[in-house]
Every structure is written in structure tokens, then in C-alpha cells.
């Protein structure tokens, strides 16, 4: 099986199809995670402030945010990609291609990350918050200098988890013609009865997961 002909073919596939799709996947993943982390972090500030046991409780604000987070999270990503296509067209200008996939992925990942961060932040010892209040720290100072500071390792591991979840989500981006490893595995591999391409793509996704998890674990230990 592993003859010279096989390797010649494999290299042809890799250089022409699989290789570029790795970069496509990474571009989508990185863009999605950067946007989602920024938006999700901001959203988590609002959640942690307005929670009933938060820094500045506000029942109504929390209810609205909570509803918003829950409703977006209830969509399967593939449905979300299709359902918000009018918004995608308005924002990105097109509904196909890589950029058109990044928007729905980021929209889906934002509340996911916000919820992860919220759960991390509420685990911070309440007594630390009380101590910070006792020397007159403002809510924002308590958030950044105490809550975020204390949860840096958890933020790293939570973000690692979200990144791996959305690595698999980028494979759905093929639905809007975005390419990437998932699309290659489905279109060039599975549907073209080409096991070489299919399993090479699968192996590369697997390696990416291990790489991301390893990087996350390394950072977690270092922090």
C-alpha cells in the first residue's frame, strides 16, 4: 500500500489540496477565536457585574443577557451559519467563502466563551472580593485586579477548550463553501471515495487538537 506511487499521489494531494486547507482552517479558527474572545470577554464582564451575586447586581440586565446567551447557544452551528446568512451578507458582503464563515462562527463562539468565563469568574473566592472592597477598590478594579488576575490559568484552560470545540466547528464551514480541512475531508475525501485524502485530513485535525491542548496545558503550567 505504501508504495512509491502512493507517496507520489499523497504528496500531490497534500501540496494541492490538504496543505492549503490547513492554513484556511487555522485562519478561520484564529479569526473566530480572537473575535469571540474579545466579545465574549466583554459579555462576561456584563454577566459577572449584573448577576444576582455579582459586583453590581441588576436583575433585568442579567435576564436579557442570559436569554441572549442561551438562545444563541441553543442553535446547532450549522443551522446558525445558514440562518444568519442575511446578516452575513449585510456585514461581510457575501454568504460564501472563508470570511462568510468566520462571522457565524464568531457569533456562536461568543456566548459560549462568555459562559465559560462567567463560570470561571464566579469561582473566585468571595472573600477576596470583600477584601478588595474593604480597601476601596472600584468594581472594575475588583474585576481586573482581583477576579481576572486570580483566574488567569482557568481562563487559559477555558479558552483552550473553546478553541478545540471551534476547531471542529470550522469543519462545518464547508457548508458555505469556505474550504478548510473539514470541507476537504468531506468533498475530496468521503464523497470522492478517496480514503487517502479523508484520513490524512482526519489525522491532521487530530494533530491540531493535540497541539492546541498541549499549548494550553503548557501555558496553564507556566502561569
Amino acid at each position: 500500500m505504501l508504495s512509491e506511487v502512493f507517496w507520489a499521489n499523497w504528496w500531490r494531494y497534500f501540496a494541492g489540496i490538504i496543505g492549503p486547507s490547513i492554513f484556511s482552517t487555522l485562519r478561520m479558527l484564529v479569526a473566530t477565536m480572537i473575535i469571540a474572545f474579545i466579545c465574549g470577554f466583554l459579555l462576561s464582564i456584563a454577566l459577572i457585574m449584573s448577576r444576582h451575586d455579582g459586583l453590581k447586581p441588576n436583575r433585568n440586565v442579567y435576564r436579557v443577557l442570559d436569554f441572549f446567551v442561551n438562545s444563541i447557544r441553543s442553535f446547532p452551528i450549522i443551522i446558525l451559519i445558514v440562518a444568519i446568512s442575511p446578516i452575513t451578507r449585510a456585514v461581510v458582503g457575501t454568504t460564501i467563502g472563508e470570511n462568510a464563515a468566520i462571522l457565524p462562527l464568531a457569533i456562536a463562539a461568543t456566548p459560549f466563551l462568555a459562559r465559560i468565563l462567567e463560570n470561571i469568574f464566579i469561582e473566585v473566592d468571595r472573600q477576596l472580593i470583600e477584601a478588595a472592597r474593604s480597601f476601596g477598590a472600584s468594581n472594575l478594579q475588583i474585576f481586573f485586579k482581583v477576579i481576572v488576575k486570580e483566574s488567569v490559568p482557568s481562563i487559559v484552560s477555558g479558552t483552550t477548550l473553546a478553541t478545540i470545540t471551534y476547531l471542529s466547528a470550522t469543519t462545518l464551514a464547508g457548508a458555505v463553501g469556505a474550504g478548510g480541512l473539514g470541507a476537504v475531508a468531506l468533498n475530496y475525501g468521503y464523497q470522492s471515495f478517496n480514503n487517502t485524502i479523508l484520513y490524512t485530513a482526519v489525522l491532521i485535525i487530530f494533530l491540531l487538537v493535540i497541539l492546541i491542548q498541549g499549548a494550553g496545558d503548557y501555558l496553564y503550567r507556566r502561569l
Partner: protein
Amino acid sequence: MGAAVITIKNLRKNFGSLNVLKDISLEIRAGVIYGLVGRSGAGKSTLLRCINGLEGYDEGLLTVDGIEVQSLKQKSAREFKKEIGMIFQQFSLLSRLDVYENIALPMRCWKYRNTEIDKKVKGLVEVVGLQDKLHARPSELSGGQKQRVAIARALSMNPKILLCDEATSALDPKTAASIISLLIEINKRLGITIVVVTHQMSVLKSSCTEISILENGRIAEKGSVEEIFLRQPQALTNLIGEKDHFLPDKGCNIKILLSQELYDRPIIIQMARELEIDFLIVGGELDRFRESTLGSVIINIPENDLSQVGSYLTGRNVSWKQVSSIECRQGSYLQEGE
């Protein structure tokens, strides 16, 4: 000892329908170490948190340095908290910051300049004796050392008042004693008024000059430590329980309270010699306070000597009371003589 720095008048607070503080009135003078004691749930920690505005109150007045705490809003409420340092039972240090940064945190929040922070932190670690631990993380420190860091942090804003919420309760007796002596030193050297919430009698006796005993959200007793421990009011007995002495059933058992003036007079021996009676010494204890020693001795005398002994003691201004073994255990008195 100056004028009242904290004045509390008819303070009331509810948590929902639960009445936690009912009509609390007290004054804490500048420069003292004041103790708030009571069983868990008596409201002492809540009262402490009202002083620096961590908790609000529903009725009454609470002024610190003439400023009503509740009237402060937002920024001025935060500014006000700079005047009052606080330390906690579980130390409340940030685990991801070293000793230096933990102490510097309040100053960073108030945007002090780095050179100023550096000077202040280095001065404070010397006060609390942790010069060699400047860059250790809290996880590398013992409980006593953590509390020292917390004390340094609380002092970083040059407060006038230091609130201690069960600050020694998580420490072993020896470490607790070293923290207490640090607090006393701070009180003497910097003139900071200290309010201590505790359930440890040893803390009260060794550090406080005045105390209040809280029972179910009310102040049951207040006064100087010596006076309260000498008088042994019901609230104190409820708190610490009467010692379970095994007293003889025959004769009368008399508890003689030894105040500071009596402590170095051989009053009991004198009595034995002058009245020419024999008695048994069946119990006794001595308590060391911050500036004095108080104690009590329980003697057993024959029934018919009671009036003679009573008038002898009363005539020499010695406090005494008759106790019986049963009442002793139940913590109430048969008869009280002054």
C-alpha cells in the same frame, strides 16, 4: 485615649425578615483595642462590616470621625474606606501575587506612584517582620505569615482604624498570640484604633481594653475587660460557660474574685489567720489581661462560718459569691455578695 472615633446609635439591620442587629449603641474611643464578642450568629461580624460600609444598615446612626457612613456615595464611600483597614479570618490574599504585590494592591488601586509604593511596601514588611519573604507567593507562607501580609496590606493606606474579623481564629494558639502582640504593637506605635471581632477569650483578655458582648443582635454587656471578667455577668457566662469544677457537696463553696489590687495581697491567707478557721481550696484560676491579672479562688468552708467569712470579705471590699456544685455546672448563681 481620645474622644469617640466610632459612634453607633440605635443601629438596626435586617437580612430580609431576619433581624440581625437590634438597637445597637456603642462608642469606641480613639486609640483603644475594642473587642466585639458573641456566639456565631450574634451579629458581631455584621456590625463590624457596617463600620466600614461593607454592609448597609436600615435604621440608626453610625459615624466614623463624625462622618455618617451610610451618607457616603460611590467615590466618597470608596475614599472613606482608605481610612479603615480590615483583616479577615482566611487572610484573603491573592494567590497569584507575591507578598510585595499583595501589600501593594490597595496602593495600585489608588494609583500611587511606583517609588512611593516601593518605599511603603518595604517599610511595612519590616513592621510585620517578613523582609525575607518579599517575593514569596502566599502558598509558600504559613498561616501566621499570611495574616502578617494581610495586616501589612491593611496598613498600606495609613488607616486610622483597623478592623479584625476573627483574625486569629484560623491560627494555632502560639501563632495567634504572636499576631495579637503585633496588633498591640501597631496600636501602640501607630496609634491606630483596632476593633476586634472574636470568639476566642484569650484574644480578648490579652489585647482588648474594652469589650461589648453581643447576644442575638443586642449588646448584652459592655465595659472594660477587667470589669466584665471580674463581674462575670450572665452574658459572659453564657458565652464561655462556667467551668465544671467538682465542688464538695458539704459546707459552702465561696468564689472569691481577685481584682488587680487584691492580686498581690495574701487576702486568703490573712483571712484564715485572722478568723482562725480552716477551709479547703477547691478551685482557682488566674487570667492574664493586657495590663493586669485577674483571678478567682473557690474555697469550701463549714456552713456556720459563712456569715463570718462573708462579712470579712465584704468588709475588705473583696467581691465574692456563693456557688454550689450543681449551680456551678448550670452556670447560674445562688446568691451574690458584693
